[in-house]
């Protein structure tokens, strides 16, 4: 970690967003992760995305569990709400917070250990509930905080730093999320901000659970030859299937796409995601074909990236539960908890 604070100087020509803030206003504390950690780069992309979306910092809640990845909410948007939960339990706390106040922007940051080992069940059920949040998995294939043991996302045959090969099959969070019924499933790479940035913006704007599995190399324990989650390996085996461009509500779509080449999707807030096919026959709305496509290419060692699956027809948690539009946190207490008399009336209905 660095001993000095990041200097409080800004470039005089720094762009400002609709709120008059600069990108520096969306930063957090100085990172204490290893120099060169992919997670810091994801943090950089989150900062840029939130800045570009002009989200008021105090209207945002950032949540995480335990692990290197889960330290990162300390490094972005310092003036937002935050909750650092017990290991693997971030989805529960996020669900609870979202239930109480649906009016915040929720961003959860987790890792392959936090989400695919100890928190796997939590992760699955948050998807099923379709909690309105962006869920980022910073996936590096190892337990960095405990000195580099293979995690549940390590590929078969991937080598540890000292040469041991991984023998257990990996859990792919994207395929799992698609099978659980998530409406927004993407994969990206910390070393490719051009792809990652629009995905984060689209994920935040999507109403419902949006998961982005970000390959984020562990520079200390998993960036060597033989690793399948190193910077170099990921760059060599990186295959975008679908390119997603995010277009904010105020902007017109200027580029013209041929029919069948691109698919514009309008989000609830009027913004749009333009999905452009990069790989031949890939269809981001056809679950069955995506499944086999991912299976096939992952067998070949390829890292398929982009907005892999998209379905905007799903109801999110509040709609599913018939909750009022107004955030519960602002509903008057006497309405929220009308007292014993009202309870008796309700119970009489069932007698």
């Amino acid at each position, binding site marked *: 970690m*660095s*001993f*000095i604070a990041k200097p409080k*100087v800004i470039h005089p*020509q720094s762009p400002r967003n609709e709120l008059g803030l600069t990108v520096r206003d969306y930063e957090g504390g100085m990172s204490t992760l*290893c120099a060169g950690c992919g997670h*810091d*780069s994801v943090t950089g992309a989150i900062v840029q995305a939130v800045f570009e979306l002009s989200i008021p910092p105090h209207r945002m809640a950032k949540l995480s569990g335990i692990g290197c990845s889960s330290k990162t909410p300390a490094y972005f948007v310092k003036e937002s709400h935050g909750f650092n939960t017990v290991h693997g339990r971030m989805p529960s706390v996020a669900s609870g917070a979202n239930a109480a106040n649906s009016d915040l922007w929720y961003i959860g940051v987790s890792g392959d250990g936090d989400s695919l080992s100890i928190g796997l069940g939590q992760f699955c059920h948050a998807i099923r509930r379709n909690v309105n949040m962006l869920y980022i998995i910073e996936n590096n294939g190892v337990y960095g905080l405990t000195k580099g043991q293979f995690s549940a996302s390590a590929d078969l045959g991937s080598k540890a730093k000292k040469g041991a090969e991984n023998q257990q099959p990996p859990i792919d969070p994207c395929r799992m999320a698609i099978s659980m019924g998530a409406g927004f499933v993407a994969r990206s790479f910390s070393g490719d901000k051009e792809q990652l940035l629009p995905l984060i913006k689209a994920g935040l704007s999507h109403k419902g659970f949006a998961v982005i599995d970000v390959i984020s190399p562990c520079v200390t324990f998993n960036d060597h030859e033989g690793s399948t989650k190193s*910077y*170099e390996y990921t760059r060599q085996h990186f295959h975008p299937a679908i390119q997603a461009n995010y277009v904010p509500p105020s902007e017109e779509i200027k580029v013209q796409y041929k029919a069948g080449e691109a698919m514009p999707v309008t989000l609830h807030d009027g913004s749009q995601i333009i999905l452009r096919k990069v790989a031949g026959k890939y269809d981001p709305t056809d679950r069955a074909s995506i499944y086999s496509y991912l299976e096939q290419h992952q067998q070949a060692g390829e890292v398929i990236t982009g907005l892999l699956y998209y379905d905007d027809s799903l109801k999110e948690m509040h709609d599913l539960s018939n909750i009022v539009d107004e955030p519960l946190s602002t509903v008057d207490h006497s309405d929220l908890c009308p007292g014993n008399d009202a309870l008796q009336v309700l119970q009489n209905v069932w007698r």
Partner: protein
Amino acid sequence: MQPTDITNPDYFHKVVDCQTGCPAHTDVPGYIRLIAQGRFSDAYLLNRRTNVFPGVLGRVCDRPCEPACRRGRIDEEPVAICRLKRVAADLRDNIRDRLPPVPAQKSGKRIALVGAGCASLAVANDLMPLGHEIVIYEAQDTPGGLMRTNIPSFRLPEDVLDEEIAQIVDMGVDLRLGTKVESLKALLGEGYDAIFIGSGAPKGKNLEIPGRYESDRIHIGIEWLESIAFEHIDSVGQNVLIIGVGNTAMDCCRSSLRLGAKNVKVMARKPRAFFKASEWELKDAEEENVEIVVNHSPKEFVIEAGKLVGMKFELMEYDLDEQGKIVAQRITGETVVPCDDVVLAIGQDNAFPWIERDLGIDFDKWDVPVVDPVTYESGCRGVFFGGDAAFGPKNIIWAVEHGHQAAISIHKHCRGEDVADRLKDGMHLSSAKMGIHEWSYSNSYDVAERTLVPHLSLLERFKNLDFEVELGFDAERAVREVERCLNCDQQTVFTADLCIECDACIDVCPVKCLTMTQNGDEADLRERLTTPARNLEQDLYVSAALPQTSRVMVKDEDLCVHCGLCAERCPTAAWDMQKFTLAVPYAIDENVPPKPELIARKWGT
């Protein structure tokens, strides 16, 4: 773009804005770090290597380094470089025994220097340690030239000047005071091996308008200041008008106040944007309640009964274009401003009545000798010029640099070598890394604003002409000010082969000056950076193609605060902070070529 050639000293030299801005290339970050460490004598000597008169220049330098300072582009006020220089001079120990030794064995070469001003003294300073015999001819009874006669002692105390001149003269210079050179031809006849002319630009410009010669209360600025310096004048009328707004005008108005004037006006023909005086000199004058009046063009002196009673001005109006240039002017009226004295400070001319025109020295249409801009040799072989005598009025620091260059030429000339075949600048880079995230310099950015210099109170300062107005920084203030320095000589050095393209440097950079992108031509790249690089005076540092994606790393040098965070966050040390030392050759280096690494070690901070 092609990868930047960082082995060329010019590239990193340019990044050190102050050092580039200084005509003599003083190692500013180097000496101010020495000041912060309390190594005042070392700081003084490092200064003296390049600018010869740190005590003088620490007070009255025109400080081209400060407008160039990177800090000024970040929080508007540059580091108070000039005032820090003075701290080194004020707080140092006796350094006489650390000055370059003069060999007992002489070279047998005799060199005449005309004028004992800063240019000639700089030549003597460089040539005495080489064993040459130096004779300086000076018309006045004291050495120092314009430093003594033109700069009032409330800005530059006499003892400071005397001491720094003595450091040079005491090396054994044959200083012949009160000896005016009347003929260059005669001087050439005395058998010198080389002659250097550093006689300055000693003639103030006149203003030929009606009434000019009808009163003895109309003075030429530099002559008037000289008379004050030599105590021939000790009073002035109550109401004084200064014509002109250069730095000499500022010295004239402030001197008037000290001689008893109560109401001093500086009269300018044009608006403030066109003033020649440095901003800080204007400020200092205005602080003393000098009124600066714009758009008044002198028309005539008003004389009544043989006495100067006022001056008539035409009131001017100007039309400016978008760039602020005057496109039209007109007279809108006239006014008379009453006064007792008028001082003309509208510029200086060179004067060479003593140089015969048949010696091979060409003169241009302003009667300035034609001099080679690199060697400072004139059309007459073995005759060199420097200071204001060479290219018209400039300032002390330029004159010192001319002196250094002329000294190299003179030494080569004396050895029968080609004066144009000169040593080139050298450089040395050494890593500033001291440990994990520890550097050999203070890399944290200090948000402090520019430290103000204490001044003598307005009541005190007018009691005596010699009371120095600026009191200088004490050690504590100096340290605070040094912390504002961005250490631009601690260069960000990039090794493309080591980069794994993790983005860490780009994310951490506080001023967003780094970008990894596809290569392109310069205009295209400048627009595609994280923050577009629109200051075209500052270079882009472009790497070789990166190993994994063949993109390039581009750094916009403009606003880098040299905090070193790119290097701290780099997992492979592809970025490193390295101390850059520029080795500028001097005359003495002609004998033994300079070793940049030795200079770096000797003056290391």
